[in-house]
């Protein structure tokens, strides 16, 4: 099965209750090869970004190296005072994220509206 390219699109959602929400929408596979797409996109966000939403609903495959990239992003976000919320993970990967402890530093939500509401 050929590995799919990681694609990340950035979208900013206005919020009536605070800072806008920057959504990183991932698609394809997230593996060790995804470092430039994942971290490159994150590092390109303006310093004013405070709320980040990760959308995994179009991700085909994720492995432990991909999860490590999410952790790297959380480390960087923590240093910049940013909050990260997550949605769109399959039940299996919600379980895997919980197993490795990521849920201590980001919350997992079933859909975009509930994830956005969690910033308030």
């Amino acid at each position, binding site marked *: 099965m050929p590995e799919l390219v990681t694609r990340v699109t950035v979208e900013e959602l206005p919020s009536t209750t605070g800072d806008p929400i920057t959504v990183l929408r991932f698609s394809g596979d997230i593996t060790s090869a995804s470092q430039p797409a994942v971290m490159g996109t994150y590092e390109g966000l303006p310093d004013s970004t405070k709320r980040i939403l990760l959308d995994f609903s179009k991700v085909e495959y994720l492995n*432990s190296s991909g999860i490590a990239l999410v952790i790297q992003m959380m480390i960087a976000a923590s240093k910049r005072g940013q909050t990260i919320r997550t949605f769109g993970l399959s039940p299996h990967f919600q379980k895997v994220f919980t197993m490795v402890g990521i849920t201590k530093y980001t919350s997992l939500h079933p859909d975009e509206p509930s994830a956005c509401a969690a910033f308030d």
Partner: protein
Amino acid sequence: MNTAASVARLMGFSDERVDDLKTAVAEACINAMEHGNKLDDSLSVGVILSMDANSLEVKVTDNGEGPQSKTDAPNIDKKMQGEEDARGMGMFLIQALVDEAEWVSSPPSGSYARMVIHLGHPNV
């Protein structure tokens, strides 16, 4: 990975267990390529499926000397503080997701990871 998943489905494993197995086999293959064969393209990674009425066993073979990493649960606080590598979760996930997991060094031919899931297990 997909062949193992198809066999597991045909045997009657639930979607959740099939997903567990797919992730475990994928992690074992990555470990075999990166740590076992040290990313040498001339070396092969083998995947051997065996089954009986109630169990599916997957062996992932490589040319290395056996596992170098560990199966301890990752410490997310240490990772966040930079005291532990953000990576290094593969063997932990394998052990957590299947019913049996072991890593066997069998020189001179190489090493293998052995994973088993059982029908009738509480997670089925």
